[in-house]
């Protein structure tokens, strides 16, 4: 059981903050992460925010996974958005100043796809959060009931956690 403790803590990280609002916030933040190309500081900061805020990590990772596939469709739009902003003459001084600052170049903001998809993600954050909250309210309780029946869930989450889950 000692070996299982860290895994239980990990499982609790994914299962905690499981109110519909926290689930919706986590899913929306995950959507932004999914849309932004990885391998840059922007994606890493977004991941850190997901871990730092009191939002549901499981929903966040689900959102990142789902929207990574959706990003294939939105990439051309994101590229257009990023390109138009980065090449806009009035914004040039801002971009130049940012580009010359330490650390900022690692965010890859000067990449059309990174900037475009990040802005698309930010724009989509609130709608995704609002639209997904009723869905989580309706479907999360029956989903919990189904999950409790799996032996692996019982083993990892333990009676205490499953009781906690059951209390909702």
């Amino acid at each position, binding site marked *: 059981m000692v070996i299982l403790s860290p895994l239980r803590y*990990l499982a609790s990280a994914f299962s905690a903050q499981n109110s519909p609002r926290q689930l919706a916030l986590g899913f929306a933040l995950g959507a932004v992460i999914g849309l932004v*190309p990885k391998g840059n500081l922007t994606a890493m900061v977004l991941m850190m925010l997901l871990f730092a805020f*009191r939002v549901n990590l499981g929903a966040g990772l689900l959102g990142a996974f789902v929207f990574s596939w959706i990003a294939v469709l939105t*990439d051309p739009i994101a*590229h257009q958005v990023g*390109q138009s902003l980065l090449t806009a003459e009035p914004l040039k001084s801002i971009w130049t100043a940012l580009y010359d600052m330490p650390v900022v170049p690692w965010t890859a903001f*000067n*990449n*059309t*796809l990174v900037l475009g998809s990040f802005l698309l993600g930010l724009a989509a954050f609130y709608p995704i959060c609002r639209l997904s909250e009723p869905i989580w309210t309706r479907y999360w309780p029956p989903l919990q009931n189904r999950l409790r029946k799996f032996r692996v869930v019982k083993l990892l989450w333990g009676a205490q956690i499953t009781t906690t889950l059951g209390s909702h």
Partner: protein
Amino acid sequence: MRWKYLIPRGILLAMMWLFFTFTLDPLLKRAAIFSGQVTTGTRIDVAQLATGFFPPTIDVNETQVANRHSPGTNLIEWNHFHLSLEGGPLLKKSFIVDEASLTGLKFGTPRDDDGRSDDLSRLGSQSSELANAFQQKVKNAGSHWLGLLTEKAKDRLDPRKLETARVADARHANWKKRFDTLEAQIKDFERRAKQIESRVKSGDGNELQKLQRYRQAAADVRTLLDDVQQVRAEMSQLPQIARNDQNALNQARLRDLESIEQTVGFLRLDSDLISESLLGPELAAHLDFALSWIGWLNDSAEQLAQYEAPDRTWGEDIVFRRKVELPRYLIRKLNVSGEAKLGGELVPFQGQVTGLTSEPAVYGKPIVAHVEGSGPVPLTLDLTLDRTGDVPIHTAEFTCAIPNSTEMELGDADKFALQVSGQRAKLRVRLRLTGEQIEGDVRIAQAAVALKAKSDAKLNPRVKKMFQHAFDNVSRLEIAVAISGTLDEPHWMLWSNIGDELANGLNGALASEFAAQRRNLESQVAAAAHEQIEGFNASLGKRYTQLNSELQLSESHARRIVEKAAGGRGLNLNGLLRLK
């Protein structure tokens, strides 16, 4: 304390730390191998890549870069490559290294596999083509000049090739035909005379019939004698024809002598041909070495500068102008040390490369390398790869004493090779590549040399003697190849004192050889021509006399028949023959 909040996140952070600790280096290693293979077009093996964060360092150990054009060998390998990144530029995403070190550098080492990679490869293709073309040219040159020399050294007096002999043979054949025809005619006269005689002697028939036979015989004899006269007339023209033929023979003899003069006059060997054939194989190797390296460096630098990630995945990076421009990758100074194999001998060296960058235009300085040998073999390499302007300009100067060069073999052992012994030879290669234009030279110098033809060379003894005479004049060896043109269509010009001195020596030997041979030939031609003409005259005179006497006999025979027939019967011979 919200442990329920902190502990799960602490565990996730620990997992991320484990990921970076145990998987970042292998991932970077794979990325380095992939990008290196794309850049160089050859297979790259890296045994270990280790990164450090405080300060940011990278160590790349036991690395091998395969030589795709020489399966089973490495183009380059090193034991340890260490670099420490500067923190300030790194925050701005520029990988700047003030000083790095590359140790245990080796070239041309063997490897376990053939080193083929499915990635791009253009390494050394142009230089190999150039070297192959060069070798082919010098091979042809070698065959040509040696063949020429052997041909020239042969005894050129072949009686069958003399014009005198050819003319004499032709005229002889004409005379034989002519005499055979005359002989046949004279024999025919004899036969006809005997027929007439037998008809005259026959006692058959009455007197009238006999008289008619005599008259007929007289007419036949008259025809026979006319024919005899005609043949005699033909024979009277023969001396004139013989004189004409003799004149023709004399003319042929004079032309034979003139031909010998001309042949001796043209007996000059080309020093460039000799140089190319003897020195080509040795120089082609050095040329290939120099051009393959400069070509590889040029291609790699170009590939690195032009490398772009695919648009679909990565979008487009918009670059903004900084107050202080920094290249993306830069190693300001790289200390190198290792061993290079020269002439089969390992030569230790050390040096430094400065300004190694992916964006030379941004950095504003060329890549400069200076390497010196640290062992007993003197060696220096100065290399400048300048891609700061619109047209890339690369220069390379390499000087070294060629190891094991106190005994060198020059030329093609299958045809003709020279054994050269002397002091250690010095090599200097200078190349300048401006865009596609290439110019430079390769020079080899060796003092106190002694030349010797390889014993297994299949040479005419007379040629060997001439060579020995020429070798005695050569005491130093200087070779130079001037290269110009473009990488696609290079031109070269080879010069060597060995070519000049051998050509001079051989030409001198050939001149004295052929002066003696010319005198010999002239006397032989004169003797041969005299023999031909005399033989011709003797044969002609003997046959002519014989035929003339046979003709006389035939005519006398014919006249006796008629006289005999007419005299016994009281006939008038003159009237019978209607002779006046």
